[in-house]
């Protein structure tokens, strides 16, 4: 992205969390990930989602890919959109340009920090601080949820496995990124 992109500039002021790489676990900050939220108000939110996004919405507790973007269910009428910064920004701009008063699309990439966790110990590292059941029956690839990570909230999505090891994307408030990094450094 060009330096004039305000989202990219804001992100640079964020905390610098050292990557953790050790046998069985790697925790890496994911740079350049655009993060946005879509809220649709009213009872027919899923049908409205389809009109706006051109695809059926993800089922509850699931994330689906569409083109360059991923759409994750967060709550009834609420979805998280992730992908390359420019693609997310363009999607938000297009949704906002509809001028509809029953929806809110907001890019908050600069307020969040994303990590990629992978390795055979990734579940154990998360389980030390997150109450979710992350075993494959309850949380297969494509699952997504909001929950807790220690004293803060997190969004977690299970991505496609790398080899035999699970891979997770987690997103926390940017102000809690250093805290999250410390949790994993000790997990």
């Amino acid at each position, binding site marked *: 992205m060009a330096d004039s992109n305000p989202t990219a500039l804001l992100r640079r002021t964020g905390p610098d969390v050292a990557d953790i790489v050790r046998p069985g676990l790697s925790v890496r900050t994911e740079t350049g990930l655009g993060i946005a939220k879509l809220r649709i108000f009213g009872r027919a939110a899923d049908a409205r989602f389809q009109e706006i996004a051109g695809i059926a919405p993800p089922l*509850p*507790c699931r994330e689906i890919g569409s083109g360059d973007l991923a759409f994750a269910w*967060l*709550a*009834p009428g*609420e979805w998280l959109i992730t992908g390359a910064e420019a693609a997310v920004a363009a999607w938000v701009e297009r949704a906002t340009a509809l001028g509809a008063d029953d929806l809110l699309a907001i890019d908050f990439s600069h307020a969040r920090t994303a990590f990629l966790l992978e390795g055979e110990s990734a579940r154990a590292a998360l389980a030390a601080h997150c*109450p*979710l*059941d992350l075993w494959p029956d309850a949380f297969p690839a494509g699952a997504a*949820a*909001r*929950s*807790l990570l220690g004293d803060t*909230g997190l969004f977690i999505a299970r991505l496609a496995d790398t080899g035999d090891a699970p891979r997770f994307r987690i997103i926390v408030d940017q102000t809690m990124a250093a805290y999250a990094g410390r949790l994993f450094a000790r997990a």
Partner: protein
Amino acid sequence: MLLITCPHCGPRAEIEYRCGGEAHVERPGPHDQVSDQAWADYLFYRANPKGGHRERWLHVAGCGQWFNVARDTITHEIAAVYPMGETLAEGSAA
């Protein structure tokens, strides 16, 4: 720790929730005709039963939605989870 089944997210740990106290407490009105006694009842007095209870819970760390729970205050057994705005027929749950 309780395992509470959110109607939207499924079973989740108690620490993801906040308990909103007794369910189905109705605000008396019109407000200028309510006695001090009835208003105090509404604001401060709750049934606090030993046994079957109906409570409101908020999935604060998850989907952010409110819902009702029928829970036994002695055994902690959850007999039913049902949406806001609905009631549970007498005898259908603890």
